[in-house]
């Protein structure tokens, strides 16, 4: 399977992060690992670019964040735990609908219906 570059993912990363948070709160590292495993190694995205996307989503009120407080047994810097807000959940549903429509229309045009 080929890789999907960062340029191809532009505009979709926010939706992918929202989808990753749908199952419950998570910090940056775990969000990345979820994306990586769900993408089967096909997502060729630089890991640092996750954080600007998280900050944009937080600024728009689609996710909320707080510092990790419970003892996790790990040493090192603190991590922030992100969770999906109600607005973020609505945006995720809208993004899914848009994606289905996009795939149906473009798939038909390309002669490869979904």
């Amino acid at each position, binding site marked *: 399977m080929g890789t999907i570059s960062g340029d191809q993912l532009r505009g979709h990363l926010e939706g992918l992060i929202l989808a990753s948070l749908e199952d419950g709160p998570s910090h940056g590292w775990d969000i990345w690992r979820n994306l990586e495993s769900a993408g089967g190694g096909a997502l060729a995205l630089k890991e*640092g670019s996750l954080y600007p996307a998280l900050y944009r989503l937080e600024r728009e009120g689609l996710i909320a964040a707080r510092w990790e407080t419970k003892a996790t047994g790990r040493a090192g810097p603190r991590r922030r735990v992100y969770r999906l807000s109600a607005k973020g959940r609505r945006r995720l549903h809208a993004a899914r609908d848009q994606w289905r429509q996009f795939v149906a229309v473009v798939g038909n045009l390309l002669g490869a219906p979904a």
Partner: protein
Amino acid sequence: MNELKIHVERVVRPIRASNRRKCRMREELLAHLTCMAEQEQHRTKDAGAAVAAAIRRFGDADALRDELQASVPVVERIGLVDLVGLGPMRRRQGEAPVRYIVRSNIVGFAFACVGFSLFALAIVAIFGQRPQRLGQPGTLHLLGFVFATLVIQCGTTTVIGLLSEAMRRALDSRASATSPRAKWTATVRLAVYCLAGSVLIAVASAALMAAIDWFVPIPFITPVYFWWITLGAAALGGPLLFWQAVNWRATNQRFEDWESLDLETTHLA
């Protein structure tokens, strides 16, 4: 770990954002890079190669910096543009907190005086020095009022800054105290600074009300309200100052830790 911190600092230091936001970025990016380096080390069994691989996977520093800068709200970005002349107001690398507090307040006061004097000269040149209508305050009266409030404001912020720093040191002493006596002494120092903060804020609030009353007598500042407001300021002043000192301590610790990293002379392995 230090190499990872230096990489993070190279990304974050030039970003125009508040110190609070930058500290958050630093901690989060470092946490992620640390996890990556641990994962790479588990794979390669070579610490140096693991750090290099983690940095490579993390992405180009310049591109990441641009993306992070774009994620900062526009108001904050504009507010922190390095305007000509504002450089002296920023904290220099390695500058002691007391020196920074005094210097930045003196520079701020000087800037405000120069700006205000130019404004005053323009007003006097346009309107003259006499009241425009009977009963209205004259221009020199207005200038005196604004200068008085500037002095009160700058004096208060300087002393509040110094008291916050003194409280921060007392909090440090209390946290590191090894004997009950040392802990008690630090607690007494904190209480004295809180009391001093209450007195200072009450005096500043009274002086400000007196200056307003001198400029334009305001009906609601009766002697009864004057004392209630002064007492309220005294009651709130100490706790507010304590809260500020706790925040200042947390920010200062993180800030000094990162800002002391020398990005020019240290090279990655």
